[in-house]
């Protein structure tokens, strides 16, 4: 069973993408107020305060010795506009992640709501009960707070000795100093899921299974790319050891056999290195796990599945599973390799026709079996 956070995120995603609001008569017939006026409100009284402090300093009426406190306040106010812009641009950048197609719904859904406010999505206006505030704090930091119908939580309490559940305000508050500290430690508020599809496509060209002429100028595999001859199984006499596919009606055809053990040996160091690269951000590992790796779904499948594109009850939870335990890291590496083998490499080792034209023809199965038996007798001197 999926948790409430995932459901909220998936609902918001569907809501924002479905265009359903266009068919809501109430929404269409009424104006919507998106004037949150974050900066205007934050700096409304700043002018007066600045002037008062400035006058106090210039007329020697400071409350602190040598006007130390007042001078510090002036400095803070002068630096505040730049800080506000930095802060807001950082917030917008963080929240924008919630719009990415591979967004992990295990991120706190309140960030998705906050992004809907900041990008003025239908249904998230002041008219709909939402609001946002930017506050300049005495310590020089700033905070942004989001309130509204989806920023509430349920609390269990008692009324006349009877247990009841009530809904209370639960605003999303982000402090600029905290956000900067996260950024300085290469940590995200909202995790952007690594582009596993691109990584795997690139990995295909790096693992040493394909000849150089299979790789195009764009560093991607060409449509005609084939695994190198050295990984194709051959008989002792050098001929290809084909697998015969039964086409029905007594007919069959040859397909190439690949030395999968050799292939795995070859690709493993590269896949391990790729996984190690991802480990540079454990948040990313969890996002990749939740969106792709855990359920072994490919990028294409994920795109088709829309809402089900997540690990569901096998999700790793950011708040609980970070820092990642050793066992989880090992499990991730194993599943990452499987993901690569199953979703990206398998197509090159399955149903590959012979490179020799004559061997690629459809043949009579009974005759082929007879020929195979005779060859066995010949090879083993059993005639």
């Amino acid at each position, binding site marked *: 069973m999926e948790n409430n956070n995932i459901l909220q995120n998936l609902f918001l995603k569907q809501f924002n993408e479905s265009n359903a609001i266009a068919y809501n008569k109430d929404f269409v017939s009424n104006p919507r107020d*998106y*004037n949150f*006026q974050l900066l205007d409100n934050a700096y409304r009284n700043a002018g007066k305060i*600045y002037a008062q402090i400035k006058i106090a300093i210039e007329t020697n009426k400071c409350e602190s010795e040598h006007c130390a406190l007042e001078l510090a306040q002036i400095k803070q*106010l002068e630096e505040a506009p730049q800080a506000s*812009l930095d802060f807001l641009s950082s917030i917008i950048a963080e929240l924008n992640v919630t719009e990415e197609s591979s967004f992990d719904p295990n991120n706190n859904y309140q960030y998705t709501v906050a992004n809907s406010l900041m990008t003025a999505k239908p249904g998230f206006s002041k008219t709909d009960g939402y609001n946002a505030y930017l506050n300049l704090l005495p310590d020089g930091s700033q905070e942004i707070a989001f309130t509204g119908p989806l920023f509430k939580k349920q609390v269990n309490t008692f009324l006349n000795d009877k247990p009841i559940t009530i809904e209370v305000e639960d605003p999303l508050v982000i402090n600029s100093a905290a956000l900067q500290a996260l950024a300085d430690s290469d940590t995200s508020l909202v995790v952007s899921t690594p582009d596993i599809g691109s990584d795997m496509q690139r990995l295909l060209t790096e693992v040493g299974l394909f000849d150089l002429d299979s790789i195009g100028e764009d560093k991607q595999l060409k449509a005609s790319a084939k695994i190198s001859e050295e990984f194709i199984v051959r008989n002792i006499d050098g001929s290809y050891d084909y697998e015969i596919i039964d086409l029905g009606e007594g007919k069959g055809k040859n397909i190439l056999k690949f030395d999968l053990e050799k292939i795995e040996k070859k690709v493993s*160091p590269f896949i391990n290195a790729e996984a190690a690269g991802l480990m540079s951000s454990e948040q990313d590992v969890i996002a990749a796990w939740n969106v792709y790796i855990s359920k072994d779904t490919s990028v294409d499948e994920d795109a088709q599945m829309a809402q089900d594109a997540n690990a569901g009850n096998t999700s790793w939870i950011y708040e609980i599973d970070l820092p990642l335990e050793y066992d989880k890291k090992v499990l991730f590496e194993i599943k990452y390799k499987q993901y690569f083998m199953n979703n990206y490499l398998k197509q090159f080792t399955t149903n590959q026709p012979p490179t020799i034209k004559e061997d690629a023809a459809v043949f009579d199965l009974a005759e082929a079996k007879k020929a195979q038996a005779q060859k066995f007798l010949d090879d083993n001197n059993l005639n």
Partner: protein
Amino acid sequence: MVGLGAALIGGGFSIAGGLFGASAAKKQQKEAAKEKRRLQNKLNNLEASRQAIINPYQDLSSMISNPFSNLSVATGAAEMKIEQADIALANTLDTLRTTGASAGGATALAQAALKSKKGVAASIEMQEKQNEDKRAAGEKQKQDALMKEGQRVQQGEAWEFGQREKREMQELDRTAGLLGAAQAAEAQAAADGGSAMAGALGTLGGIAGGLFSK
């Protein structure tokens, strides 16, 4: 988006435009930094786990030896021959003593025995000479083989150095290329963010009636 953003954020179009431009640049900068860290980790792992280069020309000189260096002389048969000569001499002397033969006969016998012993000594000497010849020939072969091996090992070291150099250079080139690109992207994004913000800042300064122009 910018028009709507102006209402959301306040302060007018230039602030909203600057903010959204700067946020896009920040996101790019962050992604570039993340990519840089990922690549660095990946390369560290590749370097740490790469296979050792096996030198096909590894030094095999310890396996070269002179098979004739410790040849022994087959003295057993010689000793037996001497022993037999001594026994024969003793028996003959006993017979002579019993039959009362002349002293001349005994002398002749002793000389025959001596001759036989000398023959044995000569045989041993010849064996020793042959062995010495073989030992010398073997030593020459060994020295020749050692010299060849030495040359081969030198070739191997050169090959190994070449291989390592080639591979390390490839990796270094790739590292430098990828990390350089990520660093450049990060720097470019930072610059983009800065210029996007420049106009916005001026406008924000005016929100409180030119408050911040000292």
